[in-house]
């Protein structure tokens, strides 16, 4: 297994016209760990995500991904779809992006597109219905069923994704991302809009994805209870730069972080911390 971090950002900068959304950001996410990216609204977190997952081409900088076997990808050079196909990075979206007119099962089948394309002999063998295609299709269905079960949506398999409740849609989106067989799972505010019970279930699910499936996770989250509970490391951003990095305990006590969140200066924040202590 490679000893390099699964994801390393080096001097990532993203400009939109005159606005610098992300400024020379460097951090890394460790293998089989949960790394949280936090920061106040507008700090540039989602921009970082969009750079990692190929929706934006960064203005400068390197995003390096290293698989377990040591294969490295410079993701800023990959085409958007290859980030999932080759580099094995899956993501979810802040505003859920399921295929609402397709069933939950179909959503998970689409996620296995590349494997199924190969199995269907680029459609030709599938059109003829050869047996090897049929077995491949069945195993894809089995995989989908596994994840549906895992997120507790097996009984909704044949319902349109657009008909599911909000919390169910969030979980289905995570299941869909997992169906691509990712090395790194990027989650953009997975707990947004969930109630306390659903948040707890989400924490449990993410911990299990990390431990049982060995998938590394990078998440953006505002729900601090979730972040503090499950993260191995936390990176804090404000105004496009990294202001702190460390374990949840380090971050909790960092005056800079509190200042960023409360909008006060550092000394005041330090005073707040002392008063609490």
């Amino acid at each position, binding site marked *: 297994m490679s000893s390099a971090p699964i994801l390393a950002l080096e001097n990532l900068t993203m400009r939109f016209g005159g606005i610098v959304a992300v400024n020379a950001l460097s951090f890394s996410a460790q293998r089989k760990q949960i790394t949280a990216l936090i920061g106040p609204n507008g700090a540039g977190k*989602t921009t970082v995500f*969009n750079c990692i997952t190929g*929706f934006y081409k960064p203005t400068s900088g390197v995003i390096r991904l290293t698989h377990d076997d040591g294969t490295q990808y410079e993701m800023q050079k990959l085409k958007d779809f290859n980030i999932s196909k080759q580099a094995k990075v899956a993501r979810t*979206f802040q505003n859920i992006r399921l295929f609402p007119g397709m069933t939950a099962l179909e959503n998970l089948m689409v996620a296995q597109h590349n494997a199924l394309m190969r199995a269907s002999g680029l459609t030709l063998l599938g059109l003829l219905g050869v047996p090897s295609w049929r077995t491949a299709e069945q195993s894809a269905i089995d995989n989908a069923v596994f994840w549906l079960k895992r997120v507790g949506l097996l009984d909704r398999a044949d319902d349109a994704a657009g008909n599911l409740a909000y919390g169910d849609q969030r979980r289905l989106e995570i299941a869909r991302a997992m169906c691509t067989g990712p090395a790194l799972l990027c989650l953009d505010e997975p707990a947004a809009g969930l109630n306390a019970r659903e948040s707890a279930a989400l924490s449990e699910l993410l911990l299990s994805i990390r431990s049982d499936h060995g998938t590394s996770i990078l998440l953006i989250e505002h729900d601090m209870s979730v972040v503090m509970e499950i993260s191995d490391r936390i990176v804090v951003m404000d105004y496009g730069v990294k202001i702190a990095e460390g374990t949840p305990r380090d971050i909790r006590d960092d005056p800079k972080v509190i200042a960023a969140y409360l909008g006060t200066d550092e000394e005041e924040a330090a005073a707040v911390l002392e008063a609490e202590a």
Partner: protein
Amino acid sequence: MDYFAQQLINGLVLGSIYGLIAIGYTMVYGIVGMINFAHGDVFMIGGFIALISFLVLVSVGLTAVPVILLIVLLVSMAITALYGWTIERIAYRPLRHSFRLAPMLSAIGMSFVLTNFSQVSQGARVKPVPPIVTGGYTLHEGESGFVVQLSNIQIVVVITTIVLLGLFTWLVSRTRLGRDMRACEQDQTMAALLGVDVDRTISMTFVIGAALAAVAGMMYLLYYGLVDFFMGFVAGIKAFTAAVLGGIGSLPGAMLGGLAIGLIETFWSAYFSVEYKDVAAFSILIVVLIFMPTGLLGRPEVEKV
């Protein structure tokens, strides 16, 4: 050089006509986000109404050309505007919040209705009119005997366009209606909450667009001396090209795009081949959309993830 200068004049005149039609496309697209496929046919109807009112006026004994032109202009603007209003009311308003394809097909259907309505009501044959505005100026006489001319009708077309454009710019930037229109363009829900009558504003957009198309139709009639029931289709596509070229949603852009298309078409016909002039116009549309989807003066569209 003389030949070039003459083509330049011809191209600018043709471009003015395209620009007037293009404004209708751009306004409607800006405010309701749909291509008004029937707009080219509204232009055609405008030409027909100008023709008929002209015939009637002449036959009742009016002889003063400026008076005739003014009345024809007002009549065709008024009646064509009514067409614009009716089309929106019948074919588009019921589908305003429907699926995207529905208004588009409804618009295509409306275009068929208008084309065939005028074929049925006025016959399929081309309608020629004798030159109404005659005369002109010789700008330059070349050694080879080629004469660069600026005809009075060309002056009329360009001046009418400029005056209307000025009027229209004032309307959009200075009046309450213009403000409402810009508000609806940004956010209809918010505009409605702030007391803008969205229905009325959209209706007025169609009315103004149709009135300008009527002017274009009348200018076309005066300039080419004929109208026919099928002229809306190709003119419509070219004007739409102009609107896109200028940057859809942008009013000066529509005029600029119109001039560009007029010039390109004229020069292509003059120097390359007349048969392929429409192919040239359509090719430009494709090239522009592929390489400059926001046009010359349009705002870039940012993809949100």
